[in-house]
């Protein structure tokens, strides 16, 4: 800056690159900004995934001691799907149900933090994130305590006959769905909050002025304008929830197992690497398909 300062007027300062060079630098800049992060992802995500992709086409009869041959065994995919479609379906069913519940809970929460909390905004925001600092395993175990057959909650529900004398909460689909909802709720709330916070309150006033009741205002203005955050939040919720297996494992029974449990077992217990890899790719493909359809329908493709 100083070089410019002392340059006499009317003379192009030496520090100022010629326009062409500046434009070139400008075109290079995004790539420079991207380089470290993209390289990281390519090396530690894309490369391993390629390797995994290859593994999904290995000879399914290979084993740890004999090794695996790449035989382009596309049959691994239908085989895996045939054996585990119930868990597949359940993953989407549970994640979808949890998402619906999370929307019912998360939208009001995000709305209140963004628009009603005033100076408590940051505090409430951290309240949403802070539970994650208490290890999720600790919290899940706490849920086990809360939902436990001998716990207060079950006792109460039994007393008011919402549960039969033998009824329980733990080890039911409900427990798994509640666990998923609980676990991933912050991922939904945070982006939703971000877009609700940006919402211009004057638009809401304008809607009210134009005869829209609060419900209508929500439906016609708030909701559509929060769509980017809503879409992002739904994805951040749904994607990991579909692949999760800890909640099913800790709060469910084998009848609640999701595809994550199957993949876990394929890699670690059954030692069927090709099938594990094939299931992983099937899951990713299914998730991506849902994601793309969702983005297309929400009209928020530029989230990509």
């Amino acid at each position: 800056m100083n070089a410019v300062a002392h340059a006499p007027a009317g003379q192009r300062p030496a520090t100022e690159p010629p326009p062409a060079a500046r434009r070139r630098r400008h075109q290079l800049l995004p790539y420079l900004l991207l380089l470290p992060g993209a390289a990281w992802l390519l090396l530690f995500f894309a490369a391993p995934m390629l390797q995994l992709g290859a593994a999904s086409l290995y000879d399914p009869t290979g084993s740890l001691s004999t090794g695996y041959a790449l035989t382009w065994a596309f049959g691994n995919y239908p085989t895996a799907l045939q054996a585990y479609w119930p868990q597949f379906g359940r993953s989407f069913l549970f994640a979808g149900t949890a998402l619906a519940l999370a929307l019912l809970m998360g939208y009001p929460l995000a709305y209140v933090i963004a628009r009603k909390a005033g100076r408590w905004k940051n505090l409430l925001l951290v309240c949403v994130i802070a539970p994650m600092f208490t290890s999720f395993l600790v919290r899940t175990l706490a849920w086990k305590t809360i939902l436990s057959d001998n716990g207060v909650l079950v006792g109460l529900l039994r007393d008011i006959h919402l549960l039969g004398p033998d009824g329980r909460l733990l080890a039911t689909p409900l427990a798994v769905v509640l666990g998923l909802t609980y676990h991933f709720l912050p991922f939904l709330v945070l982006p939703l909050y971000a877009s609700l916070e940006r919402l211009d309150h004057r638009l809401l006033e304008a809607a009210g002025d134009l005869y829209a009741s609060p419900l209508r205002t929500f439906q016609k203005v708030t909701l559509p304008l929060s769509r980017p955050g809503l879409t992002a939040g739904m994805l951040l919720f749904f994607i990991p929830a579909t692949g999760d297996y800890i909640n099913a494992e800790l709060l469910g029974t084998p009848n609640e197992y999701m595809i994550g449990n199957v993949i876990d077992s394929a890699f670690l217990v059954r030692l069927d690497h090709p099938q594990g890899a094939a299931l992983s790719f099937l899951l990713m493909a299914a998730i991506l398909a849902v994601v793309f359809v969702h983005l297309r329908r929400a009209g928020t493709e530029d989230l990509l």
Partner: protein
Amino acid sequence: MRFSRWFADRWVVGVALLVLGYLFLPIAVVTALSFNRPSSRLSYDFNEFTLDNWRNPCATSDMCDAVLRSVQIGFVATVAATALGTLMAFALARHRFRGRSGINLLVLLPMATPELVLGTSLLALFVAGGVPLGFWTVVVAHVMFCLSFVVVTVKARLAGMDRRLEEAAMDLYASEWQTFRRITLPLVLPGIVAAALLAFSLSFDDFIVTNFNSGTTVTFPMYVWGAAQRGIPPQVNVIGTAMFAMALLLVLASMVPGRRSPTTVNCPTRGRDP
């Protein structure tokens, strides 16, 4: 009439409080148990009030090591992921260039990949490359999966920013760097802070990916996982409670009047919402 209007104004707040309650319920249990002297090693039931666990949080030899290690990993991974992710977010939000959608996909995919798959495939890479597992492989893994969340969060914030403010700054003698430092950064900071918080919590809380890539390094979640099977020492609840309380205290401290936190842009909302 007046009551129904009052109710209409408040019900959503009521619902939000209920949801917060739902989020806090397990924390309450954890907090209660942190003051519990369990009747047996395998029991979670509240037995007897005690302060012993708090007086002696590190009674269980390796737990505090694990917590410390998790904090270290979380810190390094957060700093790295936030730095790399913020740069990427700027590139994606502010520039049009070839291969932009490819990069966007590269950012989205890790979020669409189950953690288990991330963990095993990365492990395979480390094993094939002869990389010894430990602290740094965990950091590498954490940076990888936190990166996407940072990019998405910061990008959203950038997208909502008024470019004219940056132009105004440049017009007022702020160089590119000064503009970034004085205007862009403070305005994007809430987004970056949110991203960093998210990254830290993701890293601190991760079990699945860490479990594959940690070698003998034991993080707090891994410790808890192991402990869960042989009876959790009550001190685990102390750590859980303390971490939570610390996060809250930090924010409360920044709210003390007179010390306005630079990340808090307190614009009083004119008018009220319908």
